[in-house]
């Protein structure tokens, strides 16, 4: 009897460890990027693996969204920038789509190498991750149902149901709205559908993304609320804290794109407001 139990238990351990050994992504939390005696830098490790993993959240077009062509490829401005970073390193790009609030923890546990997901730079976030240069600065807007006639300015928001994406600066803005019933959801398309169907009154979201949904989903419109934009810094690409090598590669990539005109081509391609 005892022998049988031990045999079974060992078999399970064996099976589990074999399946687990297929993963290449085990990492040491402490030395992300630091050069120690004989240790490889983060960039060297990426080149060795032959691929770089970017984390994103694909309900944020035009920065990242799921392509309507096949329903599964993630495309967008951030993805094109990520592809440029991968090209510069000469490795393949792997895109991992996850919930937005999972991005920073995933950087900390090295599930992903960098995160490009329309992440606004804030002091609080900068405590956990390092950011690249700002590559886009927009603002927050409110998206409401098309025929909504009673929300025109900040004070109209009292007593209204307002939503925003969990973990975003839009959510921070939404929480501060005086007198509003605020809630968060995981995905922006869920929020937009809720607004369109009148389940909530408005969605706080980044301007370009709001425009995208207004154009593609229909039944919605944008209301500009100036009070939303106090203290907005702009969007940056995030890497794990201390990962100086990869951060330099990303900043160099952005600088090269700006220098050779590719950056402007991308802003046009994806309909971002010009940064000049």
């Amino acid at each position: 009897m005892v022998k049988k139990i031990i045999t079974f238990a060992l078999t399970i351990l064996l099976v589990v460890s074999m399946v687990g050994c297929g993963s290449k992504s085990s990492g040491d939390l402490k030395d992300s990027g630091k050069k120690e005696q004989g240790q490889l830098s983060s960039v060297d490790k990426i080149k060795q693996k032959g691929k770089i993993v970017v984390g994103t959240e694909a309900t944020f077009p035009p920065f990242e969204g799921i392509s309507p062509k096949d329903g599964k490829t993630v495309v967008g401005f951030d993805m094109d920038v990520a592809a440029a970073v991968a090209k510069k390193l000469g490795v393949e790009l792997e895109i991992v789509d996850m919930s937005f609030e999972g991005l920073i923890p995933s950087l900390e546990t090295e599930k992903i190498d960098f995160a490009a997901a329309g992440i606004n730079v804030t002091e609080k976030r900068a405590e956990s991750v390092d950011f690249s240069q700002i590559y886009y600065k927009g603002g927050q807007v409110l998206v409401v149902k098309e025929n909504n006639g009673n929300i025109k300015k900040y004070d109209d928001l009292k007593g209204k149901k307002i939503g925003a994406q969990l973990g975003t600066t839009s959510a921070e803005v939404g929480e501060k709205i005086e007198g509003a019933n605020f809630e968060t959801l995981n995905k922006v398309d869920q929020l937009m559908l809720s607004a369109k169907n009148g389940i909530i009154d408005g969605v706080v979201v980044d301007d370009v993304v709001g425009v995208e949904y207004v154009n593609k989903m229909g039944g919605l419109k944008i209301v500009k609320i100036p009070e939303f934009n106090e203290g907005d810094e702009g969007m940056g690409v995030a890497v794990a804290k201390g990962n100086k090598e990869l951060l330099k590669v990303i900043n160099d990539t952005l600088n090269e794109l700006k220098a050779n005109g590719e950056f402007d081509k991308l802003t046009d391609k994806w309909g971002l407001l010009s940064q000049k």
Partner: protein
Amino acid sequence: MDGLKFEILKPYIPLILEGVKNTLLLGILGVSLGVLLGFVAALMKRSKITVFRVIASVYIELTRGTPLMIQLFLIFYGIPQLTGVNIPKLLAAVAALGFNSGAYVAEIIRAGIEAVDKGQTEAAYSLGMNNSMTMRYIVIQQAIKNILPALVNEFITLIKESSVVSVIGLTELTRTSDMIRSVTYRPFEILLVVALIYFTMTFVLSKFMKRVERRLKRSDNC
């Protein structure tokens, strides 16, 4: 409102099929791991060694008393935070589903064994068989009649529960409905299709279970 437009789903049929494949994979792997763990746990619970009994009881009670999603998050997010080891999505999903299922399977096995008439074990002892022979030749054969239908039920439950793993980004059937909803902006059509697919899978399984039950019942009249 405009009516239902199922044609919009056409370009995403490959994606939906991928979701079906992954859901079935999760079900099969999950139930296999669950049966393995459940069998070990059931044996441990009946063991004379107290430590084994305690471990098995703790496993069964804790697992049945906490939500599957929390267990999944503990494996997928918690373990990397504690140990720095990253767990790939499929492994985490199968581990969570199997680990969760195992606790229920252990109870299924226990109930199946206990449902066998006490007279059978008494008769076996009086014929001179010891504990392990009684179990192997008399009790288990009859317990299987009770256990097997309940196990198929567990498989059906697991297929439905596997929708929970969509939250870690695994492209199984529920997640494909999320993804397709986010590009078509029409939730109803894809959700209806996905619900029908889940129903087809569980319906086929429950029909199979009824067949198995009928075959097993035949031996009752011998």
